[in-house]
Each structure stands twice: as C-alpha cells, then as structure tokens.
C-alpha cells in the first residue's frame, strides 16, 4: 500500500534511536519480569528447569539490551537517559500480585513474542527506508536480525517447556 501510506517510517538517526530505546525498554520489562516471576512461585512450583529457563531469559534480555544500547551510542542523536527506566519497571512490578505457574510461563512467552514482533517490524521499516544512518546499515540490520532470531528461539523454548509440562 505504498501510495496511501502515512507516516515517515525510519527517516533519521533520531527516530532510529528512539525505536531502539523502545527495544531496550521491552528487554528491560522481560528481564525484570523474569527475575520477579521466579520469586512469585510457591516452593512446590519451583524447580531447576524453571529456574534455568527464567535465568536464561533474563541473561539474554540483558545481552540484547546492551547490544541495543551500543547501537544507540553510535547514532547521531541525543538519547534520553534510560537509567530511571529500570527503577520504574521494578516499581511497577512490585505492585503486581503473584501469578500462578501457567501465568508466569504465559507472560514469559508473551514477552518474547512481543519482542520478536517489534524487531520484525523494525527491520522491515529500516529495510523500507532509504535513509542513511550514522552507523553502518548492514551492521545495524545484521545485529537486529541476530536478536530477532534469538527471540524466535526463546519463543520456541518456552513453548516446548509449556508443552512438556502440560
């Protein structure tokens, strides 16, 4: 629908930085929730497998966040400091009630699926844009595609885990 399209997509460093920041926040949410989720489970719901699954998810999100931040640093944009975001996300989840076991896994799945969708849309928008950015386009796309692939694997892992438990 090229002819009727609205919005300027990703047309400069500033917009790209903002979108990458949204990615950072999504990863932050997954990270904080994965950490909190394990705490909300009752003793008989906890086991090494769940712990590993959530710990891996947390680690992977932290790694994605760092990679996105490294990209943002190289763009010609004045990024908004994100230091407070972590505190904000923590504060928000401190108010949430403990969830049941299925809720924890479902939320984890939802977080990874959402992140996947976000990277997918972002990659498509960058590919559709003719703008040049302060960082190498191919490198930018390669990094985002790697992260997207890891999100896809994450979705698969949680799905398999849920099926095994069902």
């Amino acid at each position, binding site marked *: *629908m090229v*002819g*009727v*399209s*609205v*919005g*300027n*997509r*990703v*047309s400069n460093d500033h*917009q790209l930085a*903002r*979108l990458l*920041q*949204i990615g950072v*926040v*999504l990863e932050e*949410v997954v990270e904080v929730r994965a950490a909190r989720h394990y705490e909300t489970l009752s003793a008989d719901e906890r086991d090494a497998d769940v712990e590993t699954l959530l710990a891996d998810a947390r680690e992977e999100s932290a790694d994605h966040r760092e990679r996105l931040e490294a990209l943002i640093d190289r763009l010609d944009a004045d990024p*908004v400091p994100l230091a407070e*975001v972590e505190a*904000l*996300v923590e504060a*928000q989840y401190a108010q949430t009630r403990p969830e049941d076991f299925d809720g924890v896994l479902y939320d984890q799945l*939802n*977080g990874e*699926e*959402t992140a996947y*969708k*976000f990277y997918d*849309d*972002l990659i498509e*928008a960058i590919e559709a844009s003719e703008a040049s950015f302060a960082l190498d386009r191919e490198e930018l796309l390669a990094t985002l595609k790697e992260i997207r692939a890891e999100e896809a694997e994450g979705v698969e892992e949680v799905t398999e885990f849920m099926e095994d438990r069902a």
Partner: protein
Amino acid sequence: MNTADQYLKAIYLVQRMENGPASTGALADRLDVSPASVNEMIGKLQDRGLADHEKYKGVSLTDEGIEHAREALQTYCIIERFLHNVLEVEEFPSEAKALESVIDETVAERLDTIIDREPQCPDCFDPKADMCAELVPEGEAD
C-alpha cells in the same frame, strides 16, 4: 500500527470534531497525504465494511469501524504517554506520529504495563490538539 488503522483513527477524530461525516480534504490535511490517496483507502475500508462514503458529504465509520478506530487510538495514546512519561520526550506528539507505523498493537500493550493510563482512555483524547487531553499543557486545553 498499519496504514488502514491510521486512516480509521483519523476518520474517527475528524468525525468527532465535525460532529458529522469526515471530508476527504480534512482527512488529507490531517494525514498529510493527497486526496487521491484518501479516496483510495476509503474505498478499501468500505469494501471491508468499516466505513460508508456518501458523495459530497464525506465518510462515516460503521460500528465495526468505530471499534477498530478506538483500538488504534488507544494504541496511539499508549505511544504518546510512553514517550512523555517514560522517555520524557518533549516533542511527544510529533514523535508519536513519526513512530506509530512501526509500533504494533501488541508492542503497545506491553509498553502499557509501565505507564499509568486513565480508565476513560481513549475518550479523553483531544482531537484538535492531537494528544491525550491529560497531556495537553495547562492553558492550551479547549
């Protein structure tokens, strides 16, 4: 948010401002596209049962169209509020407009978990200011 949703949202807001059908010209201005583009999309929305077009009067949303438009507006409100409250972006209305086509509803739902949105959302959206009325700076509200 896809292009069709952006049009539905614009029709909904223009209808609210004009208290009647939305004219092609008003929609073209609001979306910053040509009137021909607006007509093309209106035809598509009509085919999908989301809008009715009456010659010389303009376009009105069907009940289903309104439902879609309100969801799109809610997604847009989340993006504006997220930019304003979390990333502390001063130019949040123009930035939200620039980014809305890349932010999917499911992504907005996730961002929604860390912002405080009013329960009456999206009814509090100010179509003239093109932002959530709660975010309109004091003295500039209608």
